[in-house]
C-alpha cells in the first residue's frame, strides 16, 4: 500500500513543485520518490499485505505485486534519468510529463496488485489515460497528435470491450473478487457467459499488450509518439499490462479451458509472423523497433499461456530485461535522431560507431539482447519462455519463435550494420553526463543480468 501512497503523493508533489516554480527539483524529487517506493517494496517483501482488508481491500501486495512494482520503479528511474535532458529543466512541460508518467506508473502498480476486477479496470485506465496524453504530448506535431488520437480512440474501444468482459464475468460469477471468481469456476469448464466474458477481457488485454490481431495501433503510435514516450510505452506500459494479464489468467480465470490457451498460441504465432516479417522491410528504425516490441509481446504472451504453471518470476525477468534493452535502444534512437532533426531512418545511424562509440555499443548490446543472443540477458528471457512452452508441449510455437527470432536478428543486424558503416564528415553526437553513465550502466546491466539470473530462483516468487 505504501507504494501507491508514495507514488500518488509523488505525483501531487511534482505538481506542487510546478506551482511553486521549483521545477528544477522535479527530477531529483521524482527519482528520490521512486527510490523510496522501491525500498518500501524491499521492506514489504514477503508480507503479503492486504491494505484495508476490513474495507474489503481490493489490492494485495504479495511478492508478485512488489516484484513488478519494484521493476517498474527501476525502469521508471532509468526513464527519468535518461530523459532528464529532453525537456528544459524549468519548463512546465517537464513537470507535466513527469507527473503524467508518475500517475500512469501508479496505474501500473495497481495493475500488478489488484485482487478485484474493479481495481483491474481502474488500473488499466489510470495506466492508459495519462499515456494517451503523453503520446500526444508533442502538441504542435501533427504526427504526435495522430498517434495520440489513434491510441486514445482505440484504447477507449478496447477498454469498452474489456469492461463488457468484466460485466459478463461478473454476471456469471456474481462477484468481482478474483478469488471468488476462481472458486466459482469449477475447474476449467466455463459457463457460456463466463467464456464470453473471458474472451472479451482477453481481447481487451491483447489490445493493451499489442498482440495480433489487436496490435494494429502499436506501430503507428510507437512511431508517432515522441521517442521517450515510445520508450515508456514499450517498457513500463507493456510490462504492466502483462503483469495484469498474467495475474488475471494466472489467478482469476484459472484454470483456463484448453481452447483459450490454443487461441493464445495462435495469436502469438500470428503476432510473431506479422511483426517480424514486416519489421524486416521497415526503413524507419523507430517503426522497426516498434515491430520488434510487438514480437516480444508474442514471447511474453507465451508466459500468459502457461500462466497456470509458469512461475511469475520469469515473466518478471522478461519484463525487466526487455525493458532495459528497449529503453536503451529507444533512448539511443532518440539521441541519434533528435540531433539530425528527427530523422529516424536507418541511414541516420550510419557511422554511429565513430560519432559516439558509447551509443553505438549500447545500441548493439541491447539489440543483441533483444535478438536473444547469449550472453545478453535477452537470451535467458526468451529461453525461459521456450522452456515453459516446451513443457506445455507447444513445440510448433517454439519452432516458430526460434525461426522468427532468427529473422529478428536479421533486422537488428541491419541496424547494427548501419551503425558500423563508416561515413565521412560526421559530427560527434554528444550526450549529457548522466546519460553517458546511464548508458554505460544499462549496457553492463544487460550483460550482468544474464549471469545473475540465478538470483531469480532464490527470491521466492
Amino acid at each position, binding site marked *: 500500500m505504501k507504494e501507491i501512497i508514495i507514488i500518488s503523493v509523488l505525483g501531487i508533489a511534482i505538481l506542487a513543485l510546478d506551482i511553486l516554480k521549483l521545477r528544477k527539483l522535479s527530477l531529483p524529487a521524482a527519482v528520490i520518490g521512486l527510490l523510496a517506493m522501491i525500498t518500501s517494496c524491499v521492506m514489504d517483501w514477503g508480507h503479503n499485505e492486504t491494505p484495508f482488508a476490513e474495507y474489503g481491500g481490493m489490492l494485495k501486495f504479495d511478492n508478485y505485486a512488489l516484484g513488478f512494482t519494484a521493476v517498474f520503479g527501476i525502469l521508471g528511474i532509468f526513464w527519468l534519468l535518461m530523459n532528464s535532458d529532453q525537456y528544459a529543466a524549468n519548463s512546465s512541460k517537464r513537470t507535466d510529463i513527469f507527473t503524467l508518467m508518475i500517475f500512469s506508473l501508479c496505474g501500473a502498480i495497481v495493475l500488478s496488485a489488484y485482487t478485484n476486477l474493479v481495481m483491474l479496470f481502474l488500473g488499466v485506465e489510470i495506466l492508459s489515460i495519462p499515456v494517451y496524453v503523453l503520446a500526444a504530448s508533442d502538441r504542435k506535431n501533427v504526427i504526435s497528435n495522430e498517434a495520440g488520437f489513434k491510441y486514445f480512440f482505440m484504447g477507449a474501444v478496447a477498454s469498452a470491450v474489456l469492461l463488457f468482459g468484466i460485466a459478463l464475468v461478473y454476471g456469471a460469477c456474481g462477484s468481482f473478487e478474483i478469488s471468488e471468481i476462481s472458486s466459482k469456476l469449477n475447474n476449467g469448464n466455463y459457463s457460456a457467459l463466463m467464456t464470453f466474458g473471458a474472451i472479451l477481457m482477453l481481447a481487451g488485454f491483447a489490445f493493451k499488450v499489442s498482440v495480433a490481431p489487436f496490435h494494429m495501433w502499436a506501430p503507428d503510435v510507437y512511431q508517432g509518439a515522441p521517442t521517450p514516450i515510445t520508450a515508456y510505452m514499450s517498457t513500463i506500459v507493456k510490462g504492466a499490462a502483462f503483469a495484469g494479464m498474467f495475474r488475471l489468467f494466472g489467478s482469476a480465470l484459472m484454470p483456463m479451458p484448453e481452447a483459450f490457451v490454443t487461441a493464445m498460441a495462435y495469436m502469438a504465432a500470428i503476432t510473431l509472423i506479422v511483426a517480424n516479417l514486416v519489421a524486416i522491410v521497415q526503413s524507419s528504425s523507430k517503426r522497426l523497433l516498434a515491430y520488434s516490441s510487438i514480437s516480444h509481446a508474442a514471447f511474453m504472451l507465451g508466459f500468459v499461456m502457461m500462466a497456470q504453471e509458469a512461475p511469475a518470476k520469469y515473466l518478471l525477468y522478461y519484463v525487466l530485461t526487455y525493458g532495459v534493452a528497449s529503453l536503451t535502444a529507444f533512448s539511443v534512437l532518440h539521441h541519434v535522431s533528435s540531433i539530425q532533426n528527427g530523422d529516424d531512418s536507418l541511414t541516420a545511424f550510419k557511422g554511429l560507431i565513430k560519432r559516439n562509440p558509447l551509443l553505438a555499443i549500447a545500441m548493439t548490446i541491447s539489440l543483441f539482447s533483444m535478438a536473444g*543472443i547469449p550472453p545478453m540477458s535477452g537470451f535467458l528471457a526468451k529461453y525461459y519462455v521456450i522452456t515453459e512452452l*516446451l513443457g506445455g508441449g507447444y513445440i510448433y510455437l517454439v519452432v516458430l519463435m*526460434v*525461426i522468427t527470432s532468427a529473422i529478428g*536478428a536479421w533486422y537488428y*543486424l541491419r541496424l547494427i550494420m548501419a551503425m*558500423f558503416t563508416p561515413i565521412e564528415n560526421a559530427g560527434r553526437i554528444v550526450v549529457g553526463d548522466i546519460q553517458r553513465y546511464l548508458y554505460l550502466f544499462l549496457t553492463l546491466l544487460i550483460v550482468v543480468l544474464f549471469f545473475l539470473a*540465478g538470483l531469480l530462483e532464490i527470491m521466492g516468487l
Partner: protein
Amino acid sequence: MLTLLLIAIPLFMAFAIFLMGAKSARQLALIAGIAQLLVTIGAIAVHHEGDSSGLLSFNQQWIGPLGMSFAFSLDGISLVMVLLTSLMLPLIVYASYNRDYKNTHIFYGLMLLMVASMTGAFTTSDGMLFYIFYEFALIPVYFMILIWSDAENKGKTTLKFFIYTLFGSLFMLISLLYVYQISGSFAIADLYEAGRSMSSTEQGWVFAGFFIAFAVKIPVFPFHSWQPATYAAAPTAATMLLAGIMLKMASYGLIRLVVPMLPDGIAEYGFWALLLSAISVIYASALAIVQKKYKALIAWSSIAHLGVLAAGILSGNAQGVQGGVMEMLSHGILTIGLFFVYDIIETRMKHDDMSKMGGIRDVNPLFAFMFFAIVMGSVALPMTSGFVGEFLLLLGLYQYNAMLAGIAGLTVILGAVYMLRAFQQMMLGPTNELTKHFAPLTGHEKTVLGIVVALVVILGVYPDPILSISNPTVETLLQGILR
C-alpha cells in the same frame, strides 16, 4: 581451475587491450597467446600424471533449478581442442604482423574475446554453457569481418553468415531443450543418459536438430553456401580464426554431444547425415577444381576435408572419433598455413588469381618449399599430420559403411588434383612480369610458416602424444554406446 584460467586470460587481456588502446595491442595479444599456450602445456602435464587435485575441472552452480552450472573440465578431447586454440592464437597474431589493421586494439580485443569463448565451448561440461559460448563466438568474428573487411558487399555477406549460422544453432537449442525436458539438467553426463533413454525416433529428431546446427557451421554440403563468400570477404586473421578454430566447435560438438548422446538415432536416421557429408566431399572438391582464385580454392578444399571429418565422426567408432580429433588439430594448423600463404601472396601481388602467377619457386625457393610441405599436408601425405587424421577417419567410416568410405575417400584423389594444380600454377613453371620481383619472406613470415611446417611434419611423424591424450577419453565416451 586451470580451465578458468584458460578462459580468463584471453578475456582479461581482451579488455586490457580495449582499454590500453592501439599502441601495444599486437604485443599484448601475442603475450596473451603465449601465456595461453604455457597454461595449456601445464594443463597437459597435469592431465598426464593424473589430475588428482581436480585442477582441471571446475563446477559452480549457476541457475540451480534449471540445472545450469558453470561447469568446466579438461578431459582428453578438450585438451586437444584447447591445444589447437592456444597453438593457433599466437600464430595467428604473429601472422597478422604483416598487415596493420586500423583500430588495432579493437581488432585484437575481439580476437581474444573470440578465443575466450571458443576455449569455453571446448572446455565446458554443461550443454547450455556450450550453446552459449558457441553462439557468443559469433559476435566478435562478425564484427571482425564487418569492420575490417574490404569487400564491397561485406554487409550482405556478413548478414548472411550471421543469420545462417544463428538460424542453424537455434535448432541445436531446441534439441538441447528437448533432451533437457527429460534430463532436467544440462550437465552433459545427464544429457547423455536422457538422450540414450529416448526412443530411437525421438533421438532421430533430436539428432536432426543438432545436425542442422552443426552442419551449417562445419559446413556440410547443402548448408555451406555462406562460407566461401564469407572467407572471401573476411580479413585473413579472421578467416584463420574462423576456418582454423571456430568451425571446429561444430565438429567438436558432434563428438561431445551428438555421438555419445544419440547412438540409436544416428544408427537409424544418421545415414542421410553421413551421406550428405560424403557428398560434400565430392561437391566441394569439384568446385575447388574450377576455382581461379587461390583463396576460394582453399575455402572449398576446407569444406571437402571437413566433409570427411563429419562423416568419420558420425560413424561413431573409436577410429572415426580419434581421427576426428586428430584431423581437427591438423586441419586447423594446415588451414592457417594455407591462408597465411594467401596473405603473403596477396600482400605482395595484390591479387590471388592463380593463372597470373607462376615461377615463384624460382624467385623464392624457401617459400615454395614450405608451401609445398603444407600442400602435401593437406593432401594427407603420410608423415604429415593430415594423413593420420584422414586415414583414421576413413577407417572409421569404412566400418560404418564401405560405400560412403569409397565416396569420401575420393578426397584422396581429388584433393591431390586441385592442390597440385594450384601449387604448380602458382609456384612452378616460368616466372612472369608479376612474379619476377616477388619479395623475399620477412622474418616473422618465415617463423610462422616454419612453425606451421614443423607442426605438420612432427604431428605426422609422431602423432602418438596427441592421440594418446585423447584416446582414453574417446573410449570412455563411446563405451556407453558401443553395443
